[in-house]
């Protein structure tokens, strides 16, 4: 087993393990923090997949942005004493059944599909290429994305403003 493989397995373990904590933890605060593990693990995997720019973006946005936001939300909405209330809605067992069945089907598909893989090209720095693509072939989606972000921004602001007004 090469070192790289070992690192991959470690990262995969970090990712899946943290995800499991997120899924099974009864405490939202724990869940929120272990989400960070998933994100970081995934970022590591991205590096393995020669996607250095995406990995950095993953860390910056997910960990630096979304996660912080989530933690804030958790803190804002839960007084510290009832962090435990998060009980199950759908019974665990039926959910496990359905999810297990789904996972089994997907796994079956992964295994049986004859993937036509090409030999990976040597990794190169992707930032410049992605930048070119965004301002070239993907200009329109890129601009649309900016509009979506703007809309989300304004939407969030107006939603919170309403809240302020009510108070």
């Amino acid at each position, binding site marked *: 087993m090469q070192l790289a493989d070992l690192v991959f397995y470690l990262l995969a373990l970090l990712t899946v393990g943290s995800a499991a904590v997120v899924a099974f933890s009864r405490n939202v605060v724990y869940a929120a923090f272990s989400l960070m593990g998933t994100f970081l693990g995934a970022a590591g995997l991205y590096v393995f997949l020669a996607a250095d720019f995406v990995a950095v973006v993953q860390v910056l946005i997910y960990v630096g942005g979304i996660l912080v936001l989530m933690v804030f939300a958790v803190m804002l909405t839960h007084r510290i004493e009832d962090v435990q209330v998060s009980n199950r*809605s*759908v019974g665990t067992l039926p*959910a496990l059944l*359905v*999810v297990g*069945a*789904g996972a089994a*089907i997907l796994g079956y598909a992964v295994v049986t599909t004859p993937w036509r893989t090409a030999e990976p090209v040597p990794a190169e720095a992707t930032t410049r290429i992605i930048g070119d693509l965004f301002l070239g072939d993907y200009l329109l989606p890129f601009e649309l994305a900016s509009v979506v972000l703007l809309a989300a921004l304004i939407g969030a602001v107006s939603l919170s403003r309403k809240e302020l007004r009510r108070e």
Partner: protein
Amino acid sequence: MAAAYLRWIPLLPLLGAAVLGLGGAWVQRRHGERAVAAIACLPVALAFAIAVRTFAALAAMPAEQRVLVDRLWTWIEIGSLHVDVAFLADPLSALMVLVVTGIGGLIHVYSVGYMRGEPAYWRFFALLNLFTAMMLVLVLADNLLLLFVGWEGVGLCSYALIGFWYADLANARAGSKAFLVNRVGDFAFALGLFLLFWTLEAHAEATLAFREIDRHAAALAGVSLGGWSVLTVITALLFVGATGKSAQIPLYVWLPDAMAGPTPVSALIHAATMVTAGVYLVARLDVLFALAPATLAAIAWVGAATALLAAAIAVVQNDIKKVLAYSTISQLGYMVLALGVGASGAAVFHLMTHAFFKACLFLGAGSVILALHHEQDLRRMGGLRAAMPRTYATFLVSALAIAGVPPLAGFVSKDEILWSALSHGDGGLWLVGWSVAGLTAFYMFRLVFLAFHGEARSEHAAPREAPAVMTVPLTILAAGAVFAGFLGWPEVLGGGNRLGAWLAPAAAHGGAHASHALAWELFSMVASIAMAAAGIAVAYAMYVRGLVAPERIAAWAGGAPYRWLARKLYVDEVYQALFVDGVLGASRVAARADARVIDAAVDGVAAGVRGWSRFQGAVDAIVVDGFVNRVADVALAAGGRLRRLQSGRINAYLYVIVAALVAVLAWQLG
């Protein structure tokens, strides 16, 4: 020959009208009545100057080539129809232009004084200018359609000027009446025009230009239309149009009412110029009418009948302007009579002399009316001779002229008409004309004696003579009434009938004096002088000497003839009942039918459809909808049970979705 200055004759007054019409109120407010008067009179004076020049230019040309044309632009050109906006001056129209601008100008000047103090001073002069322009378009038009523009244009101005003091509804009504009666004539005129155009198109060359019509008229002589000579039909229709404008039977009824307008208007429009348009039209189309003897005979008798009827009615009128109005109708009858016997030269001659003395009479009457503070009833006048010497003198001269006292203008022109009738070989016409001469002399001097002689019967103290701005035109017109006759002084009395010779190229029959019997002409002359003298004498006997009381004659035969004449033979009433009420009744019927039959039918259809739809709706509700409702009930009940699935819990929904997805995937893969 082209003469580009012709256009300015109608354009100058039109310009004046435009300036006054658009900015007259401002001018009057800022610069007073004098400025308005200047703007109004100047264009007419200039037009008169150009008219004189035109006349001189024509006179300088050889007799056969006396034609000046000014073509402005193509008005309408479609297929074979080609109409220009073009002006034509030939001896006939040049003479008419002189009359219109000359007498029109004098009346403009007179109006400056007469209308003083009128708040809408500018409007009066704008309309007067517009009228002058339109009248000039009428006489200068080179084709029938352009003539029609002037024809209707003067009708419009007449309408607006009769109703000038429109705050009194009676004046407005008189204006409308004038316009509408004229429209009846125009209706026939238009039909005649259409028929003429298509006949010419089919048999000669399509045109509406007068010179072309004259040239091609002969080609139509043999054409018949439903058993009639087509020329007879055309000329008859055109003549009906002329009866409207020239106030002949049966369309004369508007003219007496038209006296509601200011007196200068009556003088200009309803005596000197517009009412002669019909005469002018027939004279203009002389060649055409000459080819339609049947129409000519009818025209002659219409003219004679009108002359007699109007003179008879004039005898019993008490309103000074009404007397003059009927006198105008009667004199127009003379002209039409002359046209009917083919003496269009004589007609135009009388038209011209009549313009002088009738304008003078009207303006004199206007002075009297103004002096008496708008009193028009002869029975409340009298004794004005001393107070208004100049008015009296001019009025008397004109009255003598119209009565046919030699050597004044009226005598010469009327005599020529009578002689034309006689030489035409129709003694009946001559007899009518001759007796009208007596009536004319009688009613004119009845008027003179009642207004100027005897003692004053007016409540208004000390009437004063009119200012110079009014009496000067009177004097000029009176001079015209004296001397205009010498233009056409008959050969039998040693004259050369210069006017007849002047008109000869345009009016082919104007100079048909070559072969007449000298003795008969002298007889006609003497007889008419005697008749005029008799008329004056009777009037003198009745109204100055009081030898015969007018009332006794009025009471003759139970007073019925007098009553009938005084009520104008009830013609107005008959027309009112027959046409006006008839049309109004028809219109009410039509409107009611529209609302109660056609619209009701539409509404009925709508109601029917609504009823049917209501029935359908009932069927729908009970049968079709009933079934649907059962289905809906079932669905509702089922839904009531199924709604428990809708827990409102997002997780549950998601769960179902994911489970279904997994199931589908499993099924797909399996």
